[in-house]
């Protein structure tokens, strides 16, 4: 089923669907930080308290999708390079857009970002002190829970990290713009008559996701330089306040 050239495209499309869906759910979850400390902490705590099989099942499933997606991409790119060993003297591109031509580049950026992001906010090896951020705000009972709100604010307090996150999200928007409509083409559920609308929907989705994810590091950075006051920095339990 998955060994032919088309089979590999099916793997790219099917794992792509999972990841396209995941980024939306993740973004929607993130945006709760705009509602305040209680909302995001309660949401994060609820996710962390999911039964083991569901929590780890989803994590493993997502990681398997990312690995399959990336590995198949490597196989496809190697085959594609071998298929055209001699480049044209003059290389002309008539129709393909930048996003579709640079899928490999945006994909590598995203892979690096995913590794960094997991080490930054999930496994917390980059700044292990984030583990000590505990609070009762957002807790379902009176017990202390992890203060995700403060961790995110502290995390984006470093300018280079915010810039890296936003750059990665632009890569994501390019990757999604081509990936979204490619899913339909690779699975054969696209026609040129509604293909134009699909491309537009893909671009709209890609830019919404990019905006939704970027807004948090951008707001924190603007606040860091004192232009706005949005986040409740007074409720910080983190020793280093913004700026």
């Amino acid at each position, binding site marked *: 089923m998955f060994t032919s050239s088309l089979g590999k495209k099916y793997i790219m499309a099917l794992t792509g669907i999972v990841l396209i869906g995941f980024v939306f759910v993740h973004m929607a979850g993130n945006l709760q930080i705009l509602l305040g400390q209680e909302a995001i902490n309660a949401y994060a705590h609820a996710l962390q308290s999911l039964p083991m099989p569901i929590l780890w099942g989803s994590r493993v499933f997502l990681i398997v999708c990312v690995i399959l997606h990336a590995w198949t991409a490597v196989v496809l790119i190697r085959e*594609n390079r071998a*298929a*055209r060993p001699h480049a044209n003297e003059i290389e002309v591109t008539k129709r393909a857009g930048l996003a579709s031509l640079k*899928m490999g580049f945006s994909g590598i950026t995203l892979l690096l970002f995913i590794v960094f992001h997991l080490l930054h906010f999930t496994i917390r090896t980059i700044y292990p002190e984030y583990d000590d951020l505990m609070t009762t705000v957002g807790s379902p009972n009176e017990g202390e829970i992890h203060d995700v709100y403060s961790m995110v604010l502290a995390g984006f307090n470093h300018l280079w990290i915010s810039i890296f996150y936003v750059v990665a999200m632009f890569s994501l928007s390019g990757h999604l713009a081509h990936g979204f409509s490619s899913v339909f*083409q690779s*699975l*054969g*559920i696209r026609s040129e008559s509604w293909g134009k609308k699909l491309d537009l929907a893909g671009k709209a989705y890609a830019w919404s996701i990019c905006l939704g994810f970027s807004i948090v590091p951008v707001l924190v950075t603007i606040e860091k330089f004192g232009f706005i006051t949005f986040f409740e920095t007074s409720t910080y339990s983190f020793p280093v306040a913004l700026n």
Partner: protein
Amino acid sequence: MKLILKIWRQDGPQDEGDFEIHQIDQVSEDSSFLEMLDQLNEQLLGEGIEPILFDHDCREGICGTCSLTINGLPHGPENSTTTCQLHMRKFSDGDTITIEPFRARAFPVVRDLVVDRSAFDRITQAGGFITVRTGSAPDGNALPVPKDDSDLAMDAAACIGCGACVASCKNASAMLFTSAKAGHLNLLPQGKAEKDKRVLAMVSAMDGAGFGNCRNYGECSAACPKDISLDYIAKLNRDHAKAKIKKIFS
């Protein structure tokens, strides 16, 4: 017209190959691109230089024999046009024109601008036919075919198998050709019966010939002299998935 031609010369499949520059004068604006090359070869013969080899046959845009990547574009700068139907009035006096063979591992260069496109024949031989004799032309409407289907089948059948899709594809994928040949037969009642077998065999022959994978760029359709639509690729993707699933559960 006076032109400078930068033309690919290669002695054989194993030879490295390189560009050679020739100047040609008094090219008529009304001559076709191939006539211009004929004129150049006359000139080269007069100078005692080996003429440049290039493929051509009908010279009326229907046989699919002519090829050439002209200034980076298979069949040159005109849309929906084969090299033989391209006229020199589309160029300007004094232009430098770069002429290369169609480049793909599956299309090895035979000599100069001539490439071996028999990989396409192998794809067609794998499934681009109906296994029983369908007889001579039946009476009109003896076999009902909806007009929409016959139109779509005709659009796919317009493929002349020139290979511009492969040459324009950054991955040298043959999906547009394969999907047009499969789609043409799969849409008609005579061909429908063997649809699953056909798509599996043709895709397998395509993969075996060393073509690259489709990345949904759309360059192939933009270069196609017959404007074959990307819809046929989507249709082949769908038909192939269905055939595979049916095969697993059969």
